[in-house]
């Protein structure tokens, strides 16, 4: 039986369980004197019966998904001849892959020995058997689960409480999923980063001023010895994000103040979505704009002032990135400012404050947490932005605070390290994971600091 059919049967069982459970509750009510004699509404008895049919089946399905493959593989390995079975682990993995491919009918290699064909047949038959067992077990489980629930139904049975408890645990599971995913991402990056740090000392990575990740692939190659000092990359990231925030925070904040405090509602309804379109433009398009339009203008202006401007200056990328993240600042600040109660403004106006005094002294302090939230989101977008920098700021890892020179950022380097054919165990490739881990830690620290600042300075209304 195929999986979709099985799921369909399960769904039908669950649906039937719901109606049967509800029906039983209604008939119980009829026997004992009206619906008020039931502890819960009839639909809860239905839900309870449905849950009884659903949960055991789902649990089994999940367990099957987790363990069946490894169990089958173990049996297949055990059946292999001694020679194949005693291979090193990596080699064994390749053999198993071949067997799976053969079983799936994707490989017609005549040269493979008969052992492979035997193993593939075994694999196929085991899988068929496991599917059949699964289908039978699931159907049996959901019927018995339903039966168990059905016999529990009594007028005084607390179905609502049970159903709500079940629903609450679903919610808990959902929130756990987000946390577990985050931890999973962190771990997967950390393991690769650790492998990198086994080859390159942490101190060199953190404090080295030189970044040139080209390593020798063959022993007789010249030059490329590899230097993994991440400081120039973080300085570059800081420089470009800093320029972007210098552009976006004042402009975004002023837009937000205008829209929420001065503009007529009609204008606001039109302008706000238009602004948000800015955030929807693909960053590649911003990259073109930065490289083809903004960068030449900056270079021309610089030349007229007698300044040396690189054709891929950090300034151009930063400016365009700043424009890109304006909507994050303006939209979230606008929401925060709008959430400040009108009573605050009235109180200030009634004391003879002007509109601008009211905004500066009452509205903005009260809206601070939301505004900082918007700036933070904008900052993390700026730090994580890759495309604009690739196109407009270049790849050269120069340690410089001069916005007129070309710099590179952490994310750009991660991309260049991972594109193309790579050896997975060379420090060059692994450096990408170390950079990712560092970036994660840096943004985490930024977030914590910002949260702290907000908690310290916010003025809480209500």
């Amino acid at each position, binding site marked *: 039986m195929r999986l979709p059919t099985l799921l369909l049967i399960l769904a039908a069982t669950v649906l039937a369980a719901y109606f049967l459970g509800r029906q039983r509750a209604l008939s119980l009510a009829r026997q004992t004197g009206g619906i008020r004699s039931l502890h819960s509404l009839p639909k809860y008895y239905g839900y309870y019966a449905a849950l009884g049919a659903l949960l055991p089946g789902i649990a089994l399905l999940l367990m099957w998904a987790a363990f069946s493959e490894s169990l089958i593989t173990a049996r297949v390995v055990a059946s292999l001849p001694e020679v194949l079975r005693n291979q090193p682990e990596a080699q064994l993995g390749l053999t198993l892959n071949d067997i799976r491919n053969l079983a799936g009918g994707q490989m017609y290699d005549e040269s493979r020995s008969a052992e492979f064909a035997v193993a593939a047949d075994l694999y196929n038959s085991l899988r068929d058997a496991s599917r059949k067992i699964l289908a039978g077990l699931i159907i049996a489980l959901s019927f018995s689960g339903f039966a168990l629930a059905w016999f529990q139904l009594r007028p005084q049975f607390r179905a609502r409480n049970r159903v709500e408890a079940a629903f609450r645990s679903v919610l808990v599971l959902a929130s756990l999923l987000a946390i577990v995913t985050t931890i999973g991402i962190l771990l997967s990056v950390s393991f690769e980063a650790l492998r990198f740090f086994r080859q390159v000392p942490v101190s060199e990575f953190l404090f080295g001023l030189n970044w040139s990740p080209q390593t020798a692939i063959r022993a007789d190659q010249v030059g490329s010895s590899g230097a993994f000092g991440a400081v120039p990359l973080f300085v570059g990231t800081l420089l470009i994000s800093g320029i972007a925030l210098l552009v976006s925070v004042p402009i975004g904040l002023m837009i937000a103040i205008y829209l929420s405090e001065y503009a*007529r*509602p009609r204008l606001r309804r039109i302008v706000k979505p238009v602004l948000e379109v800015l955030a929807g433009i693909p960053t590649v398009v911003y990259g073109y704009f930065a490289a083809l339009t903004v960068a030449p203008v900056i270079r021309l202006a610089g030349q007229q002032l007698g300044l040396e401007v690189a054709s891929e200056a950090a300034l151009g990328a930063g400016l365009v990135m700043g424009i890109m993240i304006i909507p994050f600042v303006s939209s979230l600040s606008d929401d925060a400012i709008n959430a400040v*109660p009108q*009573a*605050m*403004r*009235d*109180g*200030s*106006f*009634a*004391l*003879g*404050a*002007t509109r601008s*005094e009211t905004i500066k*002294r*009452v509205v903005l*302090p*009260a809206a601070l947490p939301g505004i900082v939230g918007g700036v933070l989101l904008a900052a993390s977008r700026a730090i994580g932005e890759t495309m604009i920098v690739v196109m407009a700021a270049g790849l050269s890892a120069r340690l410089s605070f001069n916005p007129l020179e070309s710099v590179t950022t952490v994310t750009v380097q991660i991309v260049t390290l991972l594109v193309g054919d790579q050896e997975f165990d060379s420090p060059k490739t692994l450096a990408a994971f170390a950079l990712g881990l560092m970036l994660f830690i840096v943004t985490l620290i930024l977030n914590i600091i910002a949260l702290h600042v907000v908690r310290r300075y916010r*003025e*809480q*209304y*209500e």
Partner: protein
Amino acid sequence: MLRMEKPQDVVAPPADAVPAATPVEAPRIAPDTVGDVTARDAVICVRGANVHYGDKHALINVSLDVARNEVIALIGPSGCGKSTFLRCLNRMNDTIESARVTGDFRLDGQDMYARDTDVVMLRARVGMVFQKPNPFPKSIYENVAYGARIHGLAANRAELDDIVYGSLERAGLIDEVKDRLDDPGTGLSGGQQQRLCIARTIAVNPEVILMDEPCSALDPIATARIEDLIDELSEKYAIAIVTHSMQQAARVSSRTAYFHLGRIIEVGPTDKIFTNPSHKLTEDYVTGRFG
């Protein structure tokens, strides 16, 4: 400021612009209203005020004086225009997009709605306390200092301290908060918050204080304290108070105006309004048959 004060320095109260009030003349000023809308020594004179919110005619041809050192209560059923009228007196209706105000509003004889009137100065002279206490999300000290700061009333910290302590004292709050002036004003109880708002208002030294149902969100004990405070404040300020509680109007005010569907139906001394009203609608309302 100086220019504004001149008329009253020179001769008599500017209410003289309107001929000294006699009950006989009253119908000429306010044909819709029973009783005398004028007051001796008036600080605010309103004649023929109309307010439209979009298509809604919320206030219809209303005339009323507010005298110095009096407490005038504005009563009436919900939606009768009393709060609208109150908000005209310091031009708070300016903040409502759709509101249109016409009529003659004078503060010390000066036209409040004249083109060259500075609404900031006007609101400094006519303070307002709102229905729901709305302290700023700042410290207690900063709440009271706010008005003094924006109007530059204090030259240095010592003067500002004087203003803050003095205002809190007059608002009857100083004993409760003197040890925690740096705590947020929003952490006080409802009644304390409302007294903080009153302290904040008197810190800018207004001539008139408008109160829009200042006790409707408070418990009876806090209400009693505010009412005592209104009594004390009336020695120094003119107070116009909107209230839904007729007992409160009877307790705190010397004059009462009854609003009904955007008009003032009757104005008179509070005891007369409550014991012997002339108009049928007023009688229905104060005896609880309507409203």
